[in-house]
């Protein structure tokens, strides 16, 4: 690279549990450019970004920032080196004001005292500088909308005088109106010569905002092109690429799907609207869509965590009021949640205890026979553990997930909702899960599969419902192409 760069990454390697997630990746970001980092989930975008942020450390490769070679072992080092990262989970204290959060740990002082006037003023300047006029420096973060919290995050990043700002799916949780805000923000950064590394799925945004686009696939660099030189369709092709045929189990001939087991009509709540969806026995229905499009919200509604407030749900023809997990479980619904550490597992309890948690918690689900089946379920999933008494916190992500799946299979559900079942687990475990999921369908379960990895949805689902902004944008049959799905998901008409 002859021209000056803020960031140069060369030959970055990274593996987790022996699985290579990044293979000698190169990346160059120039000052004042908005650089898109795209690729399917699991392509390695987030890992690359976390390495840059000092959350992970690369196994091999060099990072050069503003001409100096660096290697981070702690987020603070990255911050001090001028890399600011806005993660999806926020790093703000809800009880403190915007200004207090932005300057936390670096409060401006006058004669040793915190200079609140200066703090407020600098925050105000910073915000107006970023073109944000509707965010009071004194407002308590906990009372802000997600968008404004995100702006606060970005402002915090800015205030550290970063010359590279990384944003991981910044619009994931935003509604369209708020996205505009973010656009303006990014523009300002560009004007001020700050480089932005921008991870997103939304093609529209990418083409609206970005100067260059770097495409990752399966942990490898596919290409790095100027946004002007490529059409959205070509970009999608680049992202999807020529597929090394992933070993997905053969779908059953879709002739003999059984009766409708799950039927949602007109389902809606604060995040969803007009959801009509049916899943038949033996059928796998995939829910595709971008972050924040409403996939997870459907799962939560079906499981009674954030119930539908409009419309009706019927299981095996019987209408049910899914007002809470117990109701859902009683109705024969199971749910493998997205964030297994927070919602799925009691980490300090044993494999056995976790696997029987649902049975233990629900008298009607509990039976000696089911409890005795657990070990065979676990071994059928090829769980790798020291023994049934090992605490699950010591298991690998994939094996933790197997425990979560097992605890739900133990209840012999009629409908199972899988929300990102393979998030952050290694390829081997993935394939086990794929076969397991197929097997479940074969046993007559209705499977509702949510995965941000299109390839999974396409490879597994008999039918794909694509969500966009809380509504079902369209349904596609098995064997649909990723381009078709992307088309609906990115809010463009398919053809």
């Amino acid at each position, binding site marked *: 690279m002859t021209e000056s760069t803020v960031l140069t990454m060369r030959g970055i390697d990274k593996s987790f549990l022996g699985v290579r997630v990044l293979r000698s990746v190169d990346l160059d970001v120039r000052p004042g450019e908005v650089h898109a980092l795209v690729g399917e989930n699991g392509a390695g975008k987030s890992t690359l970004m976390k390495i840059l942020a000092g959350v992970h450390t690369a196994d091999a490769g060099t990072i050069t920032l503003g001409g100096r070679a660096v290697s981070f072992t702690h987020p603070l080092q990255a911050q001090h080196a001028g890399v600011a990262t806005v993660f999806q989970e926020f790093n703000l204290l809800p009880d403190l004001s915007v200004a207090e959060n932005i300057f936390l740990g670096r409060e401006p002082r006058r004669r040793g005292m915190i200079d609140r006037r200066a703090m407020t003023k600098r925050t105000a300047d910073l915000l107006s500088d970023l073109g944000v006029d509707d965010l009071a420096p004194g407002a308590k973060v906990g009372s802000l909308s997600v968008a404004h919290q995100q702006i606060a995050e970005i402002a915090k990043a800015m205030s550290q005088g970063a010359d590279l700002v990384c944003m991981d799916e910044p619009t994931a949780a935003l509604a369209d109106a708020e996205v505009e805000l973010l656009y303006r923000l990014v523009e300002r950064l560009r004007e001020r010569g700050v480089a932005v590394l921008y991870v997103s799925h939304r093609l529209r945004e990418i083409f609206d905002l970005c100067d260059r686009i770097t495409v990752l696939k399966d942990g490898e660099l596919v290409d790095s092109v100027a946004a002007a030189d490529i059409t959205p369709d070509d970009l999608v092709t680049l992202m999807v690429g020529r597929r090394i045929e992933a070993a997905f189990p053969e779908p059953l001939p879709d002739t003999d799907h059984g009766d409708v087991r799950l039927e949602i009509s007109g389902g809606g709540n604060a995040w969803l609207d007009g959801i009509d969806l049916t899943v038949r026995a033996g059928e796998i229905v995939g829910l595709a869509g971008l972050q924040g499009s409403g996939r997870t919200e459907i799962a939560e509604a079906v*499981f009674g*965590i954030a119930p539908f407030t409009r419309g009706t749900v019927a299981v095996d023809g019987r209408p049910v009021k899914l007002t809470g*997990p*117990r109701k859902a*479980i009683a109705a024969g619904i199971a*749910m493998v*949640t997205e964030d297994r550490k*927070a*919602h*799925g*597992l*009691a*980490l*300090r*309890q*044993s*494999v*056995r*205890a*976790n696997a*029987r*948690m*649902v*049975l*233990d*918690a*629900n*008298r009607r*689900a*509990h039976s000696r026979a089911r*409890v*005795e089946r*657990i*070990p*065979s379920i*676990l*071994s059928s999933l*090829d*769980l*790798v*553990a*020291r*023994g*049934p*008494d*090992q605490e699950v*916190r*010591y*298991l690998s992500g994939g094996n933790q997930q197997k425990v979560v799946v097992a*605890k739900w299979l133990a209840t012999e559900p009629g409908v199972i909702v899988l929300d990102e079942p393979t998030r952050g687990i290694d390829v081997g475990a993935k394939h086990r899960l794929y076969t397991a999921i197929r097997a479940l369908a074969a046993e007559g379960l209705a499977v509702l599969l949510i995965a941000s990895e299109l390839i999974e949805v396409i490879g597994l689902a008999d039918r794909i419902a694509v969500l966009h902004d809380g509504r079902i944008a369209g349904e596609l049959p098995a064997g649909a192409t990723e381009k078709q799905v992307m088309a609906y998901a990115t809010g463009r008409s398919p053809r």
Partner: protein
Amino acid sequence: MSRLRSAAAALAGGGTGTVFALLIAIFAVVAAVNPGFFEAPSLMAFLKQAAPLVILAAGQYFVIVSGNFDLSVGALVGAQVVIAARLIDGEESRTLPVIGLMLLFGAAVGLANGLITTALKVQSFITTLGMLLVLYGAIRLWTGGAPTGSLSESFREAGRMGIENVPLLGQIPWALLIMLALGAGAVQLMRTRFGRVLIATGDNELATARSGGRVDTVRTTAFVLSGLSATVAGILIGGFAGVSAQVGEGMEFTVITAVVLGGVVLGGGQGSVVAAMGGALTLEALFTLFNQLALPASLRPSVQGAIIIAAVAYAARQRRLTSRKPQREARPLTATPS
């Protein structure tokens, strides 16, 4: 087999190991100072007098492992003894009905603690602190400041008497048998669905709720159990030593200390009920040791405080290490019926 392994693992890591090691160490010193202590009669006497705290510890364990505190047990123990004395007032015939009433009262207090904590979302520390004040005041209001009435002989049987003339042992105190029975019961209870949901609740409330666990219900039940254990402790203490105005004072702190000494983590989700009871036994053994060593009475609190801090600090360190140290070679889990 696997259970054996787990037992070993449990003893190796965390506070559980620490407490039994400490117990053995203390007993060793006691034995050195006064071998006679381990003759049946004095050992039985020790266990008889330790029983109430052990039972309280079991009760407190349920509350702590589900992520709460119960500071009201000391006041409750005192209240129960006073209630018994006033209501029985020396009438043998009233003994059983009154005991029944006490159990109801204990359960009611626990229920109140539980509901205020879960339904009104008041931190258990405050709930039970308030309950402590209420009980302390109410009971004295009721008796005009000092206990009245007297206990019946049959009421005192449980705490004071035992099975006499047992070969080798002499007297086996009822208190010991009750302690063993309730201890076994507690261990069994933790093996039931309730116990599993309870400890899971203390570990990860959200995950438990999403598994359909009735989080609030089990927590409330834990408080009820604590209230009942305080009642039984009251019956035993009242039986052991009769009525006095100071019964139970400060016991809440002693028992929480005992449970934590047993490696049960404040905040919930970790620790076994056996270890909690072991902690209580250790604490009682410690007091005995002080007495055996004729340690200046006024100096004892200092030594006690130092030992407790040291033990808990050591346990905390152990936990940190075990959670860091690489796990032993994992292999595919073959179906072994649990």
